[in-house]
């Protein structure tokens, strides 16, 4: 027994601290990438680094980031949500149509929308834990159903594929102030979504690293059977994570509604993949058990910088998707390498 500690110490030293450092900070790789993208566009695009330019970049990053953060948590918990993109649109539609049809205060619509969106999230999570089908299949089903419902119900109720303007209704101004206003910080004009985004990142980071729920999320994604065996309520964690995505979809949806006044019912398709890509670029493992909220935020920032940087550099915007695809591949390769090092002996 006396020989064991010495042998062990030698063992751990030999495995090297680099991989461990990286695995402890999943967002490191993404941060290096973000700095590279920033430097690149600062040199290539005029106006990118001016306050107005940065404000636009941060706004683009925040609209993706609000969703990428809970999607990252869900991925750390080992699941996907393909319905996240259209759920945003559903949330906006419910809010708008309830207010308009009931001639109610817009805040009533906002509240009803919250309940409906959380119910969709609950449905995803509950179906997953009950059927044990892959989340890919279940949320693909929800995605298709919501896509159809968004268009179908909107046409059925309003006659067209977009909602009526609710800008003159009671409560619109105050709701707009909460979800879609501009704020001025030290001379910079920033969209309020940036505040929502940073608040969500802070809350998610706190939950992940400093609460029991966070420990359970990592364990559920990392090894659900082991987690269950030591008493972690794995199913409740999963349902909670889906409802977290729904909560963020509600915030995004209200932003959509109150910044444009009308909602196009066909929107949101394809965004779910952008959220997932941002989370993966930020260091989340597709297989679960590893990642961070800050990483997803950096992933969203890379998206924001790239999409707006290309515009400021006056390039063909079609290159945007190609660029992101390449980033995604690089990020996944880096993740795979880290995982191999971290799990070297298991």
């Amino acid at each position, binding site marked *: 027994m006396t020989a064991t500690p010495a042998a062990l110490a030698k063992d*751990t030293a030999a495995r090297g601290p680099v991989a461990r450092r990286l695995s402890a900070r999943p967002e490191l790789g993404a941060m290096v990438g973000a700095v590279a993208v920033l430097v690149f566009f600062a040199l290539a695009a005029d106006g990118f680094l001016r306050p107005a330019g940065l404000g636009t970049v941060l706004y683009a990053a925040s609209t993706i980031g609000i969703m990428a953060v809970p999607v990252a948590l869900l991925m750390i918990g080992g699941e996907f949500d393909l319905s996240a993109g259209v759920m945003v649109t559903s949330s906006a539609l419910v809010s708008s149509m309830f207010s308009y049809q009931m001639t109610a205060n817009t805040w009533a619509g906002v509240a009803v929308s919250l309940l409906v969106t959380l119910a969709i999230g609950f449905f995803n999570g509950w179906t997953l834990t009950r059927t044990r089908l892959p989340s890919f299949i279940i949320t693909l089903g929800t995605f298709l159903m919501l896509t159809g419902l968004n268009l179908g119900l909107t046409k059925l109720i309003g006659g067209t594929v977009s909602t009526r303007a609710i800008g003159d209704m009671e409560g619109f101004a105050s709701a707009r102030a909460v979800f879609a206003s501009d704020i001025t910080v030290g001379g910079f004009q920033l969209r309020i979504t940036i505040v929502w985004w940073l608040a969500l990142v802070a809350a998610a980071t706190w939950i992940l690293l400093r609460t*029991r729920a966070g420990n359970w999320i990592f364990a559920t994604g990392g090894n659900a059977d*082991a*987690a269950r065996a030591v008493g972690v309520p794995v199913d409740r964690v999963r349902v909670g994570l889906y409802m977290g995505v729904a909560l963020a979809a509600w915030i995004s949806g209200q932003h959509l509604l109150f910044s444009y006044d009308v909602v196009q019912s066909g929107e949101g398709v394809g965004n779910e993949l952008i959220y997932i890509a941002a989370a993966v670029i930020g260091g989340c493992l597709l297989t679960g058990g590893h990642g961070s909220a800050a990483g997803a935020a950096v992933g969203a920032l890379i998206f924001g910088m790239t999409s707006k940087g290309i515009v400021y550099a006056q390039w063909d915007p079609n290159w945007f998707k190609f660029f992101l695809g390449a980033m995604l591949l690089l990020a996944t390769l880096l993740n795979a390498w880290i995982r191999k090092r971290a799990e070297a002996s*298991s």
Partner: protein
Amino acid sequence: MNGTSTAAAGSPTALVELAGVGKRYGNATALEGVSLAVRPGEVVCVLGDNGAGKSTLIKIISGLHRHDGGAFRIDGEEVRLASPREALDRGIATVYQDLAVVPLMPVWRNFFLGSEPVTGRGPLRRLDTAAMRRTTREALLRMGIDLRDVDQPIGTLSGGERQSVAIARAVHFGARVIVLDEPTAALGVKQARVVLRYVAAARDQGLGVVLVTHNPHHAHLVGDRFVLLRRGSMAGSHAREEIALDELTRQMAGGSDLDRLGHELARTRPSGPDRGAP
């Protein structure tokens, strides 16, 4: 020899006792009429080949599955466990061979998984990370494991070390009975020795141990009683004094089945090249 209960008068109540326990999955009988009893400071080894029903037995004791025949008693009280949590609350901790830990999580997070201490109140209620790290280091040190860095992913530890961490965890959280699922199966000789030492250490602290294995050599080193399973039912239950390692190995390897196989092979041998007995 096949006595199901050898509890002598005056010995303490069994921590865990199974009496004729059975389990069916649909039409398939996974387990039938299995009886055993674990007392404080006692190691009961459950031996059996693949498919003998060892894992079903573990799942029943650890609360993952409910038995549907016979009686399952904890401290003499009949129970039907609804979840692993309930088993844990009653002092039964199970250490699984392959799913004991979450490889990518740091050692200290693994150590406290499911029983994390918190500090603060209201929205500031948070993990007591400093205490968690310190306690992990100390609890491991008591078991003779000296980790300089409890922040490393537990997947970077060797198999034996991970098992030992899991055992240390069970002991720390006040388990009275530890169920070990093949703790030495994937390990080398040296690592297996380390794990068996921790089993003995846990026993000496007064814990009851259920050691599930298909290695009679390891079982005989630490076991007080040996329960043999074959195709879902009990093929024998022997106290340590009643059975020698050779006999245990023979029974474990199939007993009379093996003898029959021996005859069969003996008849066919002359026609083939002689490569010696298996």
